[in-house]
C-alpha cells in the first residue's frame, strides 16, 4: 500500500481525489449555511449531473452535452499544462480562447468558410496571440501573466466588436451557424448516434483526445519536449547547453495559444453555444483550464478526466434546487471545487512528508529492537 503511494502517478491520482472530496464537502457546508433544507439533495444532484434524469435516452443525451463541452475545456487545460511544463503560466489561454472563438465564428458567419478552414483559422488566431505574449516575454522580459491578462481584455472587446457584425438583430447573440452556413458545423461522423442523436457530439471529441495524447508524446518522447522542459525547469542550464531559450519560449506560447484557439472552435463550431456580443467578462473556459490542468496532475492524459469532471460538476450545478438557492449557487459550488483543485500539489507534498516521517519512525523502531537483541 505504502509502496504504491510512493508512485508519483498514484500520488497525483489520490491527491486529486482528496481535493474533489474536500471541495464537495465545503460546497455542502456552504449550502447548509444558506439553507439546510435542500442542501443534501442539491449536492447529490451536482455530483449526479446527467444521471439525475431517469430516462436512459435523456441521460445519454445530457451526457453527450457534457462531453461536448468537455472538449474545449480539455484543450484549454492542455494549453495551460503545456506552457506550465515549460515554466510559463499562460493565463492568456482565456484570451487565446476568445481569439479562437472570434476567428472561427467570423469566418463561418461572415465569410461562409467550411469547418476545416474555420478551425485552422481559430488555431492560428490563438497562436498569434500566444506569439505576442512570447515575444514580449523573450525580447522585453514582460511577465507573461501581465501581458496575458491585458490581451485577454483586448481580445474580448475585439471579439465583441467584430462579432456584432454577424449577430442577430433582435438579440445580443451571434446568428445560428446551422441557419447561415451549415458547412461550418463540425461533422458528426456518426458519433451522434452513440449519444441518442446528440448533434453536438462531433469529431471534436476524438480529435481533442488525440491531441491530448499527442501533447503527452511531445512532452515525454521528443527532442523538442526535452528542450522545452529543460528551458522551463532551468533557463540558465538550457542556455548553457546551447538551446535557443528565447525561441523556445515563443514556440511554447505559440503552441499553447494554438491549443486554446482550437479549443474554442471545438465548442462554437458544434453550434452548442453562440457568442454573446455584449458580454463584459472573459469566458471562464481558459481559467477553468487552469484548474483542470492542476487537478489532472499536470498530465495530458489526466487532463482528459479532470476536464470531464470539472465540466460534469459545472453542468451539475444546473440541477440544484432553485426553490432554495439562487441559480448562481451552482457556479459557487463548482468554483469552490475548482479552487480546491489548486491544492493538488500541496496535498502531494504533504503526503510525501507524512510518508517520509512514518518510514523514519519505522526504521528507528527497527534499530531499537535490533539493539535490544544484542
Amino acid at each position: 500500500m505504502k509502496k504504491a503511494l510512493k508512485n508519483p502517478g498514484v500520488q497525483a491520482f489520490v491527491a486529486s481525489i482528496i481535493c474533489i472530496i474536500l471541495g464537495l464537502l465545503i460546497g455542502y457546508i456552504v449550502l447548509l449555511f444558506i439553507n439546510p433544507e435542500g442542501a443534501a439533495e442539491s449536492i447529490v444532484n451536482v455530483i449526479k449531473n446527467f444521471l439525475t434524469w431517469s430516462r436512459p435516452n435523456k441521460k445519454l443525451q445530457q451526457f453527450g452535452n457534457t462531453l461536448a463541452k468537455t472538449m474545449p475545456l480539455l484543450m484549454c487545460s492542455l494549453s495551460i499544462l503545456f506552457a506550465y511544463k515549460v515554466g510559463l503560466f499562460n493565463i492568456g489561454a482565456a484570451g487565446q480562447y476568445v481569439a479562437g472563438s472570434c476567428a472561427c465564428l467570423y469566418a463561418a458567419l461572415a465569410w461562409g468558410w467550411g469547418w476545416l478552414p474555420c478551425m485552422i483559422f481559430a488555431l492560428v488566431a490563438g497562436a498569434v496571440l500566444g506569439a505576442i505574449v512570447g515575444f514580449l516575454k523573450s525580447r522585453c522580459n514582460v511577465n507573461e501573466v501581465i501581458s496575458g491578462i491585458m490581451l485577454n481584455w483586448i481580445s474580448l472587446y475585439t471579439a465583441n466588436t467584430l462579432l456584432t457584425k454577424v449577430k442577430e438583430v433582435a438579440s445580443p447573440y451571434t446568428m445560428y451557424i446551422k441557419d447561415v452556413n451549415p458547412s461550418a458545423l463540425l461533422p458528426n461522423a456518426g458519433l451522434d448516434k452513440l449519444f441518442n442523436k446528440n448533434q453536438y457530439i462531433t469529431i471534436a471529441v476524438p480529435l481533442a483526445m488525440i491531441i491530448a495524447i499527442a501533447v503527452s508524446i511531445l512532452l515525454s518522447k521528443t527532442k523538442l519536449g526535452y528542450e522545452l522542459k529543460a528551458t522551463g525547469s532551468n533557463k540558465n542550464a538550457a542556455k548553457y547547453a546551447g538551446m535557443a531559450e528565447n525561441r523556445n519560449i515563443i514556440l511554447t506560447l505559440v503552441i499553447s495559444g494554438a491549443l486554446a484557439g482550437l479549443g474554442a472552435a471545438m465548442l462554437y463550431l458544434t453550434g452548442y453555444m453562440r457568442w454573446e456580443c455584449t458580454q463584459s467578462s472573459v469566458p471562464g473556459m481558459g481559467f477553468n483550464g487552469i484548474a483542470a490542468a492542476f487537478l489532472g496532475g499536470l498530465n495530458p492524459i489526466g487532463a482528459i478526466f479532470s476536464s470531464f469532471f470539472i465540466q460534469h460538476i459545472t453542468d451539475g450545478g444546473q440541477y440544484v434546487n432553485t426553490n432554495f438557492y439562487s441559480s448562481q449557487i451552482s457556479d459557487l459550488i463548482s468554483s469552490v471545487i475548482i479552487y480546491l483543485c489548486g491544492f493538488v500539489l500541496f496535498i502531494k507534498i504533504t503526503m510525501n512528508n507524512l510518508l517520509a516521517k512514518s518510514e523514519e519512525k519505522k526504521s528507528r523502531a527497527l534499530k531499537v529492537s535490533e539493539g535490544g537483541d544484542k
Partner: protein
Amino acid sequence: MEQYAVEMLHITKRFPGIIANDDITLQLKKGEIHALLGENGAGKSTLMSVLFGLYQPEEGVIKKDGVEVKINNPNDANALGIGMVHQHFKLVECFTVLDNIIMGVEPNKMGFLQKKEAREKVMALSEKYGLHVDPDAKIEDITVGMQQRTEILKMLYRDNEILIFDEPTAVLTPQEISELMQIMKNLAAEGKSILFISHKLNEIMEVADRCSVLRKGKYIGTVETKNTTIEQLSAMMVGRNVNFHVEKKPANPGEVILQIDNMTVASKVHKNNAVKNVSLKVRAGEIVCIAGIDGNGQSEFVYGLSGLEPLVSGKITLCGKDITKSSIRQKSVLGMSHIPEDRHKHGLVLDYSLEDNLILQTYFDPEFTTPAGFLRRKNIREYADKLIEQYDVRSGQGAVTTARSMSGGNQQKAIIAREIDKAPELLIAVQPTRGLDVGAIEYIHQQLVAQRDAGKAVLLISLELDEVMDVPDRILVMYEGEIVGELDPKKTTQEELGLYMAGAKRDEVKA
C-alpha cells in the same frame, strides 16, 4: 568540573527522510577557540541553526554556563550573548560602518539617535581588539576584510560572549586571513569563546585550541589541536586517509588551443567593465589556472568566453578558428567543454533524471535523436549507464535518479563525466571542487591532470589556494578584471600569490 560557556548535549535534529544531526555533543570552553570541522552536508550548519534558535532539536539540551536554556529564535540567542558572523555578510551596502553596527540596537533618546555615544563605544571596541575600521565609510566602498571586521564589531557591540564564525576565510586574501587569525586570538585572550566553522585544516591547526569533527550528521570526536595532525583530522572528517598532493608528470605543452585577445566583458552589477582587456593563451597538454579572490571578474571572464554573456570587445580563437561570434552550441561542437561555476544554476537541470542530464550537451546527436525528432531512449540509457560506471557516479536509482536528490559530489561527477566524455579540445573548469569533500576533490584533480596528459588544454578557474598551487602548470592572477601576473607554481609561494591577488603587486603580462 570544567566551566563551559555553551554546551550542546546529545542534539538530534531530523528532517523528512534525513537525520541532519544525530546525537551530537559540542562543548565550548570559556575563552577557547573551538573549531567545528566537517564536509559539506556533515551537519555543521544545522547544528549552528539549532544553537541560534532557527531550528528546534527533537532531542538534546543546550546549556549556557551550566544552566539549561531554551532557544526558540535568534532573539533568544542574542539575549544569551550568542553572535554569529555569517559566511555571506548581512550588511546594508549603502549604510556606513557605524550605522551597520548599531542597526537594531540603536541608542536613542525618545526616538532620536544618539550616534555620539555609539561611536565612542565602537571606537573603544575597535581599539581594544585591534579591529581597524573607518566608522564613516560606506560598506560598498570598503574591502571584504573590513566588512568582516564590521560584522565582528556588530557582535561585540551587542556584548556577545560567544562568537560563531561561519567559514570566515573563504572570501579573504592570505594576508587578511592571518590578520583575522590574530583578531580571533585576541578575542579569545579577552575571554570571548569562539566557535570556528571550517573545512580548511591548516587554519584550524593554526588558530583553534580544540576541534570537534562531524561526519554525515554524526559526532566523530573532539581532539586537542596540539595533539593531532592534519592527516589525522582529515581522516576523521572523511573517514579514510586522503592524498593531498596531486601526482603529476611535468607538462608537455603543444600547440595553442585557445587564444584570447583583448577580451572585455561588461559587468552586470556596476558600470565598469568586469573584465578588462584580457589576453591569454592555453596550449594543448597544459593546465592554466586563473587565480584570484572571488569577484575579480573571473565569473564574467568565463561567461564571455563560453558565450553566456556578450563581449564588449575582443577576439577568441579556438584551434585556429575565430569563435568570437559563435553561438554556445557552435563553441561546444567545436570542442569547448565547460564545467560551470554553479552546478545548480548552469550545470544541471535538477528536475531531470541523471541520464537526461548526461546528454544535456549532446541530446541532438543522431545517436540520441531520430531524424523525426524522437529521443532514442534505449541509446540514452546505455550511454548513461556507461558514464555512470566509468566515472563512478553514485545515485539512489542509477540513470533514472532525479539530479536534485543526488549529493553535491556526485552531481559534480556527473557534470565532469558529461563534459569530459564529449572529448573536448579545451576544458574550462570553474571552481570544479567548490563545496566538495576531500575525497571528491582528489578525484576531480586526477581527472583534470588526466585530460592534460591526454593532450587537451585545460583552463582552471579557482579560488582555493591549495588548488591553485597544486594543480596547474601556469598561474595567471586576475585582479579587478585584469591579468596582473603570471606565476610558476613550482617557484612561487602562497605569500607572493597573495600579494598579486590583493593587487599589491603586478607585472605587465603579455599573452
